[in-house]
């Protein structure tokens, strides 16, 4: 067993930024309930509102357009359910618009929600993607109609990192009067996002993907867009999300966003260099590999590689023994033995698709980490391929 530990699973979750940790510990004293009238509550309220401003600035939104939620999954569900809400008394969504248009490569929290809504009688269209994971804007154009309530497209895919042209998506969707949502959980802080420029109606984000705390998320709701609560109760969050505010989580998330705004321009370039080093290293050392995702429109730290004739789960476990943490796809889908729905959607052949590994680099990774992976990986692939009945190739 190796004592060296390399964490390259930053798309599953990220370690807390040390500054965020400090902030979390510092805000112990702010224990008043932000909804209370007394001075304890008011102080907590001010810090929460400061966080809301930081997030709003980061997204190019107004503070009253930002709602704090329990996480990305909750944010996604809130949007999907609101436009198709079954409230007969609801005047917000005209009965004629009931359809959802989404993609085949959404995160489970969108995909499974749409599937659930389909079972409730809501029609849904799942847009296909090309080999690099891009949707076809013409297909989108053909799919949206006067029946479309919502178009929901993931901004950057969590498994292969492909970034979609959300601005174009919004243009096409709005032309037919549909609302637009994007799951930006993986994108925010890794690519520039400005909700005004993109002209979207809803955006989801989660704190723990950006070195912030877990259990806290964001939902951007454009001013004037229709809204129905997922969680009802107290009047918190402009009466849009009930529950005592998670002060610590909100302040921690605000700090994470503030740090991202400062550090990321440089960090993006650094991640790109590291990823390129890893990619080139793999291509030089291992034959019969396929790089998934888009060549240029891709998250700077995400590298998804398929190794022909090697089972992804086996690669993961051997790497784990060497202290290297990666994943085969979404952590939210682990436990299922099927190939990743994202890789399948790109049309990659089964002999490759089963051997897909996601390396997701983050702020703690170094060149040394990359070199360590490059030192261990070829032997592991070779070992697995030797045991394989489907692989007859060799190793460089």
């Amino acid at each position: 067993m190796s004592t060296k530990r390399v964490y390259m699973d930053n798309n599953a979750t990220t370690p807390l930024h040390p500054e965020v940790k400090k902030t979390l510990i510092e805000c112990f004293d702010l224990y008043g309930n932000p909804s209370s009238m007394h001075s304890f509550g008011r102080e907590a309220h001010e810090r929460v509102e400061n966080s809301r401003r930081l997030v709003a600035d980061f997204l190019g939104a107004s503070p009253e357009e930002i709602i704090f939620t329990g996480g990305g999954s909750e944010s996604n569900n809130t949007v999907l359910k609101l436009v198709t809400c079954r409230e007969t008394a609801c005047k917000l969504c005209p009965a004629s618009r009931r359809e959802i248009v989404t993609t085949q490569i959404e995160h489970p929290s969108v995909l499974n929600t749409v599937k659930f809504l389909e079972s409730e009688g809501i029609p849904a269209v799942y847009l296909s993607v090309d080999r690099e994971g891009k949707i076809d804007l013409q297909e989108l154009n053909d799919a949206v109609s006067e029946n479309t309530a919502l178009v929901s497209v993931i901004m950057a895919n969590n498994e292969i990192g492909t970034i979609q042209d959300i601005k174009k998506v919004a243009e096409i969707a709005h032309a037919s009067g549909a609302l637009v949502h994007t799951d930006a959980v993986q994108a925010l802080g890794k690519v520039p996002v400005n909700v005004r420029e993109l002209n979207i109606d809803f955006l989801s984000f989660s704190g723990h993907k950006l070195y912030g705390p877990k259990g806290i998320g964001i939902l951007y709701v454009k001013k004037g867009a229709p809204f129905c609560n997922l969680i009802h109760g107290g009047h918190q969050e402009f009466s849009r999300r009930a529950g005592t505010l998670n002060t610590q989580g909100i302040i921690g998330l605000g700090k994470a966003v503030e740090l991202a705004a400062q550090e990321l321009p440089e960090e993006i370039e650094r991640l790109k260099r590291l990823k390129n080093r890893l990619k080139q290293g793999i291509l030089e050392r291992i034959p019969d590999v396929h790089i998934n995702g888009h060549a240029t429109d891709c998250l700077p730290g995400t590298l998804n590689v398929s190794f022909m004739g090697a089972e992804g789960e086996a690669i993961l476990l051997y790497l784990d023994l060497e202290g290297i943490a990666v994943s085969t796809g979404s952590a939210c889908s682990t436990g299922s033995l099927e190939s990743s729905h994202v890789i399948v959607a790109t049309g990659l052949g089964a002999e490759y698709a089963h051997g897909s590994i996601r390396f997701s680099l983050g702020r703690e990774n170094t060149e040394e980490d990359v070199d360590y992976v490059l030192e261990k990986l070829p032997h592991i692939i070779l070992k697995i391929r030797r045991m394989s009945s489907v692989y007859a190739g060799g190793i460089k």
Partner: protein
Amino acid sequence: MENLIYLDWASTAVPEEDLIYESVRASVKSFANPSSIHKPGKEAKELLERSRKMIADTLNCKPENIIFTSGGTESNNTILFSTLKKGRQNGIVISGIEHSSVFEPAKTLKEMGIHVRIVPADQNGIVSPEKIARVIDKDTYLVSVMTVNNETGAIQPVKEIGELIRRREEHLQKNIHFHTDAVQAFGKIPFIPEDLGVDSASISAHKIGGPRGVGALYLKKPLAVLYCGGGQERGLRPGTENIQGIYGFTLAAERRNSRLKEEFKRACELKEYILDSLSSLNGCIFISGRDHNSYSPYIINVSFVPLPGEVLVRVLSDRGIAISTGSACSSAHKKKRLRILENMGQPKQIAESAIRISFGPSTQKEEIDEFLDILKKEVNSLQRVAVKL
């Protein structure tokens, strides 16, 4: 925050600083996604499951009965909205003194066509089991009655209600889900869901000194989910698990439950002391009773008629004392604020004058003395002005 006196524990408790620090520390160490299958992921999973076991132990139930959520509100919403199952005739019964996180979902369900019956409490703030049983019919799917009311501290006869529900079930030949919002009970009074005969119960971390944004649902049997996503929490609640919150919650639950008896006794003494001290004040009417079997010793609801509760809260806040008029979740809406007391049939004047004093384990006797001194002075001088008006 020196010289400030915090007596609004029912709204949120003073966090147990050492435990929250410990939970942040542990979550930095076990930071990975518990659903990941690599070693760091397994470490996080281990901490998650250890936490679940510890919470289950405090409730005397199995770990698989515990679903972690983002808090009491989400836990309550999950149960209420499980009523929306396709193709079923559904009716729900709630008490009139439920927290807004039960009451508002019920209102929404009513708008959606679900048959909602609301059973009022009596003037003492207690719901009659017979009245609940009487409105249960063949359409009833869910009954929700809280364990301890957040404004008056009134402890509801949950066990008796449960027994009557089971009898109605037998009579009607159908299953009825019995839920209790135990947010104000857990860690404060003995609370074992199995003993009370409930099918589900909501609990929250920040009411017992744990972190915000985390709670749990005790669930006897799996139920329809509130929202969809990954397969976390046995498919019943998606989203990457909030390890820091969950572990902090667990540590707080353990501490509260290990000291429950002695803290309960101390709270009883403090409560009696406050009641004795205030009873002679002009216009004083206690809404919370003295009997510790029927009222949580941690909550006192009192009116100084005709002084508006809101005025007293603001005056005391200026003097560095935090109390409330009722639920923080309803503090912005006057009509909603008075809902619970009005449901009990309390006259409007008493309801509008009500203030809630709530305390916890770190509340000191000296703080109570200082608070009582200030409160008496303020009440006396305000009453003099009120008389002149």
